[in-house]
């Protein structure tokens, strides 16, 4: 062991993005089982886990499963540092030998971990659908008002409390377009705020869509004899479900975004 390891944290000049994980792994020493450990951090070039004893060998074979259904990968690791933490010593190791395939799997795992593309694209697609929905509604509102006031000379009732509804419709359009126009990618805290704003706007649009879907249900639009009207009802129902799920996905993503930004901030500070 010698002086190679320090009990105090040194400023780590790592160039590899490190993500927090909770993966069970087995340590083997010269071909025989040594210990089961809980891997707490994983990077493309190393792992960190807790060992109870301060003194342990300098190198191990690590058998790690990235998910319960994958084959365990064997990686030769070398201990780089130890840090006293509650419950033992956080042991940081670098990969000494990995197969190309295993390295690729680890790279993909970390890329997937830091990626938030899926839910953020779903939010954007939801906002896009709402924008289309808002546009046709405004147009249909104008056509309806025109026919009611001109062709039928006011004999038909105007849309629900005309000006209030028009205001609601314009607000819905503004929220949908804003949610769609705001960027979906989160690369820093500023972008995170924009992402939150986009989600809040979409939440407002979602309230409108759900209210309309409930109203359609109440007037039995889904039982209409016209395919066009029934199709419209189901399209609206799909929109409400899709936007709701996209928002739920976005809310579920918030903690992850915060975590990823923290990881990246630490990573950047080490890269400087």
């Amino acid at each position, binding site marked *: 062991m010698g002086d190679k390891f320090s009990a105090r944290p040194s400023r780590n000049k790592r160039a590899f993005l490190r993500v927090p994980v909770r993966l069970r792994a087995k340590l083997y020493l010269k071909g025989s089982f040594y210990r089961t450990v809980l891997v707490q951090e994983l990077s493309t070039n190393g792992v960190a886990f807790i060992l109870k004893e301060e003194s342990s060998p300098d190198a191990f074979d690590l058998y790690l499963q990235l998910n319960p259904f994958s084959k365990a990968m064997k990686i030769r690791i070398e201990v780089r540092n130890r840090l006293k933490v509650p419950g033992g010593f956080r042991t940081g190791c670098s990969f000494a030998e990995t197969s190309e395939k295993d390295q690729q799997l680890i790279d993909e795992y970390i890329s997937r971990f830091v990626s938030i593309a899926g839910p953020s694209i779903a939010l954007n697609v939801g906002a896009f659908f709402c924008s289309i929905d808002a546009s046709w509604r405004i147009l249909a*509102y104008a056509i309806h008002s025109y026919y009611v006031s001109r062709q039928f000379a006011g004999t038909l009732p105007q849309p629900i409390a005309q000006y209030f509804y028009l205001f609601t*419709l314009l607000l819905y359009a503004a929220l949908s377009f804003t949610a769609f126009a705001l*960027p979906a990618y989160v690369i820093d805290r500023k972008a995170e705020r924009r992402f939150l704003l986009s989600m809040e706007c979409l939440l407002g649009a979602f309230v409108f869509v759900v209210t309309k879907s409930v109203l359609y249900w109440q007037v039995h639009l889904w039982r209409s004899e016209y395919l066009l009207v029934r199709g419209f009802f189901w399209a609206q129902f799909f929109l409400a479900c899709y936007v709701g799920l996209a928002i739920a996905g976005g809310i579920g993503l918030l903690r992850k975004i915060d975590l990823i930004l923290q990881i990246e901030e630490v990573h950047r500070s080490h890269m400087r």
Partner: protein
Amino acid sequence: MRDLIYLKALLISFIVSTFLISGLYFFLPFNSQVRQNIGKALDMDVLYLTSGETVHGWIWDEKEGMVVGGTKEGKIFTHRRSECVYIHRNVFLQYLRQMI
């Protein structure tokens, strides 16, 4: 990232331009074919008769217990008011009102 911005700009332009092009409807002459067709479609009435038959068309007149109108096929219909279970007037305009 830049591609995504361009794509969004393109999609917004598409929605807005479709909206504006559709808005040209209001600038068309009143007797133009498009306006006549849309007006006719919104104005369509449906008669549900006691015989179970449904008549789609346009009611022109209702006098002395008689309902007179024309169908989509250009035929003229005359029914007693008592033969009609229900008359759904301006069907699509009513639907449009519920849908917007």
